[in-house]
């Protein structure tokens, strides 16, 4: 039988049992729809995290003190705190693949302004920080190299700090008190929101590292050095270059790193790994409903074969081979499941955008998921249609014709 005829025959028999077909298809519709919504939510979350990690700064490399392994003995990170301003300056001087290098000095302090106070984190950085973190000001300007060299008491504050200390006013030009010293606010950093692990990035005060070291921390220790590579493609090369310069600066050999250079991708991967697992978990729970839908198809096909035993007998008597009957029933179940899959796709895409609208989560329907859903629903049709179809094909024409 020609395939066009087969599809027509399948279509006709589906039309003859509209209600039953619709209900059977509903199983697949729900299955495919659920899988797509779950994948969309998961993908959206992954994309969201990727965006947030990008928001850390472009092509960011983070150098921290300590290595996971020193001469074969694991020391744990931060075991040695041997990052210095010299390291940062050497990186800045000798690096060829770096767009910016900034040391970071961090201290938790109480900040006062007017009658209120707020506990936040001071980041002592160089002027490159703005480039490295890709962070603009919403008001005022970043501090200058003169401020840095002069160890001036200037600071930029994050939006959260501004909202808490200066509600409703532009804080630029005002002063804050840190450890009884007044700092001039030269700018307010633009709002960035939460980072990948849920920290409020706007809860921050930024000032020259020279000022932070002399006025606040009182030592020359550096928490981390942030480096941004010139481009995404150069990130691995930049990472190697940074490591090489660091070894030279610390006068150590290849295997004795007392620092760690991590790139953004690694950080991103760690965060995305978790969401990926969640996505798979959700999708696999959803695909259970797809399998249940498939069993529904199988059930109906079995009923259909029994009901249409006589029809099968007639077809065989007038010359249908077993394979013709098998194909007919198989096509029927595939048409049903693929139609269900297509409707489920629409439901899934619609559902995903509804979820996005009502929860504010970003959702994303990947093309691969669409292809997979359609492919999988066709596979469900074949898998669950095969047994009933084979049962039909194996009927004895004489028995089938006699069936009442």
């Amino acid at each position, binding site marked *: *039988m*020609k395939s066009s*005829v087969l599809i027509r025959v399948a279509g*006709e028999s589906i039309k*003859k049992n509209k209600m039953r077909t619709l209900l059977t298809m509903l199983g697949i519709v729900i299955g495919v729809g659920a899988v797509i919504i779950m994948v969309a939510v998961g993908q959206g979350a992954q994309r969201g995290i990727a965006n947030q990690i990008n928001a850390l700064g472009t092509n960011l490399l983070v150098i921290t003190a300590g290595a996971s392994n020193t001469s074969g003995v694991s020391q744990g990170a931060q075991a040695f705190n041997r990052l210095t301003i010299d390291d940062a300056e050497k990186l800045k001087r000798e690096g060829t693949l770096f767009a910016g290098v900034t040391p970071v000095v961090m201290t938790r302090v109480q900040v006062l302004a007017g009658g209120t106070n707020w506990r936040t984190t001071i980041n002592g950085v160089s002027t490159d920080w703005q480039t490295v973190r890709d962070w603009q000001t919403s008001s005022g300007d970043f501090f200058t190299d003169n401020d840095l060299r002069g160890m001036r008491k200037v600071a930029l504050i994050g939006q959260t700090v501004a909202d808490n200390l200066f509600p409703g006013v532009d804080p630029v030009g005002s002063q804050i008190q840190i450890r009884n010293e007044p700092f001039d606010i030269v700018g307010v950093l633009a709002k960035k929101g939460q980072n990948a692990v849920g920290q409020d990035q706007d809860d921050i005060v930024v000032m020259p590292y020279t000022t932070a070291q002399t006025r606040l921390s009182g030592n020359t220790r550096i928490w981390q050095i942030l480096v941004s590579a010139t481009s995404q493609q150069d990130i691995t090369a930049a990472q190697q270059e940074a490591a090489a310069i660091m070894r030279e600066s610390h006068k150590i050999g290849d295997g004795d790193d007392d620092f760690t250079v991590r790139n953004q991708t690694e950080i991103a991967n760690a965060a995305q790994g978790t969401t990926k697992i969640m996505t798979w978990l959700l999708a696999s729970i959803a695909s259970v409903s797809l399998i249940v839908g498939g069993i529904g198809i199988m059930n109906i096909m079995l009923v259909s074969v029994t009901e249409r035993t*006589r*029809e099968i*007998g*007639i*077809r*065989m*008597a*007038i*010359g*249908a*081979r*077993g*394979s*013709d009957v098998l194909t007919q029933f198989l096509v029927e179940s595939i048409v049903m499941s693929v139609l269900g899959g297509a409707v489920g796709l629409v439901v899934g895409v619609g559902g995903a955008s509804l979820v996005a609208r009502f929860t504010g989560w970003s959702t994303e329907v990947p093309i691969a998921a669409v292809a997979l859903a359609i492919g999988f629903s066709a596979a469900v049709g074949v898998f669950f249609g095969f047994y009933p179809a084979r049962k039909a094909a194996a009927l004895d*024409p*004489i028995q089938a*014709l006699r069936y009442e």
Partner: protein
Amino acid sequence: MPNVITSDASPTPVIRIEGVRKDYTMGDNIVHALRGVDLTAERGEMLAIMGASGSGKSTLMNMLGCLDTPTSGSYWLDGIRVDGLNRNQLADLRNEKLGFVFQGFNLLARTSALDNVELPLLYDRAGRWKNTKELAAEALRRVGLDDRLDHQPSELSGGQQQRVAIARALVTAPTLLLADEPTGNLDSHMTVEIMSLFQELNDQGITIVMVTHEPDVAQYCKRVVEVRDGRIKRDHPVEDRHNAAADLRQLLATEPEEEEDPGIMVEETV
């Protein structure tokens, strides 16, 4: 005297059966449905197989229809050896050589007459048929249903349904038309109508074999084979063969008045 039983001089007979036996195992018992049957039918015959239920006539019919294969013995259909063929080969043979007409019509429900008749053409593997719709329409025209192409079986009378079935059997231009109790579900008027159609088709050269237990129906055939206990008991030409068309004219001349006023009949029977 036209002797139609085995003649070596004739070209390939449509049916040639030699020493066919068929045994069924039912639980621990073996049922000998056919116990050695020899039968030959030539082109253009109109043969009635008669017998009581359990005589083996249905088994013989299934055998002739390539729906079943003999336990032993040989069967040639139009010169092709049937015994020993597999399921697929039997299916192909049924499609190419045979046309079936059943007692219960066996049309596909909720499927138009035209689509029903077209069906055997679609199962053809040799790709012999183009314009299957037109061929189906032509077959329906041949049985006088050219105004019922789009009707579904439920919208047709029993006689019309059987006509559709006959059209379906004819559409592939089969070597042999097999009819299993074709008038079993029809009243006497429709029976004569259908027999008239069979006679007309036979006159056009179509070989017909039918199973029936009604002697009246057998009277319209050319030859009667009587089966009993799995064997052929009698094989004889029909004497005083009836002409169904003439009988039909006679019926039409007497019946319509009665049929037009069924109310009177009800009163009479009450």
